[in-house]
């Protein structure tokens, strides 16, 4: 298991110790989970059915902006503020 790649996908900073430990633990857990592979299953089958609901296209007033912004680690009163994006994407 490529723990570095998984940590990057999950956007988790891990110390070298953590990498070693999680790598080892997850190998062990996954080895135990191998038993699932021999089970005969039907792809895409689901355990139970849920009836979908859809909503009418009726606007609901948004809460005051401040209610959402005030909990932000950084904002300018109108926007959430984040460090500049350096890696191009």
């Amino acid at each position: 298991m490529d723990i570095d790649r998984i940590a990057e996908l999950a956007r988790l900073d891990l110390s070298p110790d953590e990498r070693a430990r999680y790598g080892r633990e997850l190998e062990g857990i996954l080895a135990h989970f191998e038993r699932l592979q021999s089970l005969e299953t039907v792809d895409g089958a689901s355990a139970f059915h849920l009836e979908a609901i859809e909503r009418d296209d009726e606007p609901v007033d948004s809460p005051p902006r401040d209610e959402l912004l005030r909990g932000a680690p950084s904002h300018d009163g109108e926007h959430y503020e984040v460090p500049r994006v350096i890696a191009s994407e």
Partner: protein
Amino acid sequence: MSWESVIGLEVHVQLETKTKLFCGCRTSFGESPNSQTCPVCSGHPGVLPVLNRQAVDLALRFGLALGCEIPEVTKFDRKNYFYPDLPKGYQISQYDQPINGRGGLDITVDGQTRRIGITRAHLEEDAGKLIHVEHRPVSHVDLNRAGTPLLEIVSEPDLRTPDEALAYLKALRQIVLYLEVSDGNMEEGSLRCDANVSVRKQGQETLGTKTEIKNLNSFKHVHKAIEYEIARQIRELEGGGRIRQETRLWNDVTGETRVMRVKEGADDYRYFPEPDLPEIRITDERREAIRKQLPELPAQVRQRLIAEHGLSEYDVEVLTDERDLVLYFEDVVAGGASAKDAANWILNDIRRLLNEGDDRLTSLRIEAKALAELIALVQAGRVSTQAARKAFDRMAASGDDAESAVKALGLEQISDRGELEEKVRAVIASKPDIVEQYRGGKTKALDALMGLVMRETKGKANPGLVRQILGELLSE
């Protein structure tokens, strides 16, 4: 050695709903930042999405119009990636059971009509907006757009030239406008286009390595960027290089595409079914109800106009360019004008106004009914065609109806036979030399007499009637 280019387009169309795809926030454009957000569309802990029925209906309307395969069951999936404008850390999209499967769209280039395959058209939510701040090492996030319903329309790699790509995009925009599923406004981002471009040697079966070009936010850019990219790839290959699979950004200032991101392996979006939204069963009733309400599409309208009114292919092409123009045309005809007259006025004078103004039929001050009246006044001989143009300009500026514009400008023709006969007799009496020339076989002399009568009446005389009276009196 000649090259062939292969192009596929991915078009994101904003669906014209009042509210977002999964919450009740409004979708209006240009509002104050983060003023149209709630805990749901800003991805707060514990919130859940609830699907907007109208978005589903609009997506189905599009799919049915393009002959797409509509599945019995469609579902949503999560596309996982991190970006500050993506509040939940995943986009709710559709992966393996899109609401619209295979369909197609006809395009006409250089008189040749070709069907371009649609791979799929699925529903998904838009992301927010990341704004780069000048002079400070920070960016700003505005989530007003986050959660806006989009239809992502993916074409097959069936397009071969920039002209075809442009024609496809125009046809697509035309259709979404006809269907009223989107306002198709490219400047406001309601219609966005990415292009997948590759080249291969003529006759080669396999596809070349493709690049994806983003940021094509006008018809002009689409054409230029694809043209540039094809040339770049050919130049690269002919120079012995190779094409890397990458995402490139069109820069309109430099007129180039440049690398934005190299796709190492593939992105790992870790798609899985969205557990917060049960699968949607699309019942026959729902599908048929939407099918019944489908409006006429441009191709159908064109056929009908030619068959019903005998208009030319060219006239019909221009008339159907925008659905509003067709509706206007039909209203003018319904107001009593002949199809030919209505088409002439619309194709010349109305379009001139639109080109001069803000391009919107909705802000036009001449109602279809008023134009029909004006045409009727010409038909009845009450105003000349030339005078009618003057009246038209006044109507466009003031919103007057035809009758009042003609009155206000004093443009009404003199069609009273008695009154005109009197004037004609006076002119004949005062110009015996010209009369003589005419009688001597110089038919052009009649025009001179006509001109005199018109001058006498300040141009208001009904020219047809004057000519008729002149003819009669001179042959006495």
